[in-house]
């Protein structure tokens, strides 16, 4: 089964979704991330979905869930690089992910994280 790679960079975790994901891959990602947040004591997770072209309500829910799970584990998720079509679909599905921070690309997400850590 495909798995989404999770990379540790300093205090951050970077999960990059590289293809359109199946439901089971998404579920596995949730489990993996929760485990890795604890193991790495990460405070911030960057979820890079720039390669994701198609979403359904399940994947949309998954993104919201990952954010919720991370929050419980005292980490914050920044959703990075959502494609226009994906954004439109999620809005039309009513999943506006309120409370989840977003960034255009990994670079600006890291900048956001840097500002957060200074405060």
């Amino acid at each position, binding site marked *: 089964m495909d798995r989404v790679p999770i990379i540790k960079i300093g205090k951050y975790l970077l999960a990059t979704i590289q293809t359109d994901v199946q439901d089971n891959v998404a579920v596995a990602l949730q489990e993996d991330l929760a485990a890795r947040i604890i193991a790495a004591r990460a405070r911030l997770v960057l979820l890079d979905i720039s390669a994701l072209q198609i979403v359904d309500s399940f994947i949309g829910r998954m993104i919201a869930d990952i954010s919720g799970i991370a929050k419980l584990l005292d980490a914050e998720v920044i959703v990075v690089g959502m494609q*226009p079509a994906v*954004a439109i679909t999620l809005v039309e599905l009513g999943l506006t992910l309120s409370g989840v921070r977003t960034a*255009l690309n990994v670079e600006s997400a890291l900048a956001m994280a840097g500002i957060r850590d200074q405060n």
Partner: protein
Amino acid sequence: MTSTRSVTPVPLVRAKYETVLESWIAEQKRSATARPDLISDSDLARQSSEVLSTLLEGLDSGSLDVSGPAWEHMRAALRGISLSRVRLGFSPSETVLFILSLKEPIFDPLQELDPSNRAEAILELNKLIDRLALVTSEVYQQGREEVILRQQQEMLELSTPVVKLWQGILALPLIGTLDSERTQVVMESLLQAIVDTGSTIAIIDITGVPTVDTKVAQHLIQTVAAARLMGADCMISGIRPQIAQTIIHLGITLPDVVTKATLADAFLVALDRLGQHVVATDPVSAAGR
């Protein structure tokens, strides 16, 4: 009518195929509606022979139902010809007359029949060609409508420019009434521009939008939400007093949306968020304003 079997003596017409075709082409060239400026002789001959042979093919089936499967080739041929004539700039009557002018030439071979059969066959062919003319005119209309639709689409694209105001700041000046379709295009082009330019702030200016109803407000909220999902902030500027009143009277709230009276105000806020500000290089003349 649809169940009636054909009484047309097809072999008789087929025997004189060349004569009928030639006199039909000659008839078309002679008529007042001939357009040698739009269509070449070879194309005209090709189209005519295509229609005549498919007509005979349809008659062979014995069915007179032009919307039935036996006449599918005929409909396809007429469709192709009609659409090509729309593009070439033929008028509706010129296009329909193409089919109608077949009547006289095709009645010619029927002269050999005895009077009672002849009348019946002519009547039948007459009705048939009339119906084919109707098919042609319908397709012609459809072709015209497609052209109009395409132009609408092009106008939509032209009417939604996304302007880069500053490094990282986009503006989308909306002019004219917003409907669902247009808002969709607006949303798509704004989001695409956000990706292309890597902008983190977008300003939607609705100074040129005459009215805002619940639907338009809904679309604006959706656009702002979608931009936020991608990691860009969205502001709305240029809300005129009447529109502000309408929005409140309709009970619409724009939650989590920064609204500013003018594009200039929104631009200042945007610059501020990027950690930049505008300073006067000459305080004296700046104060004189």
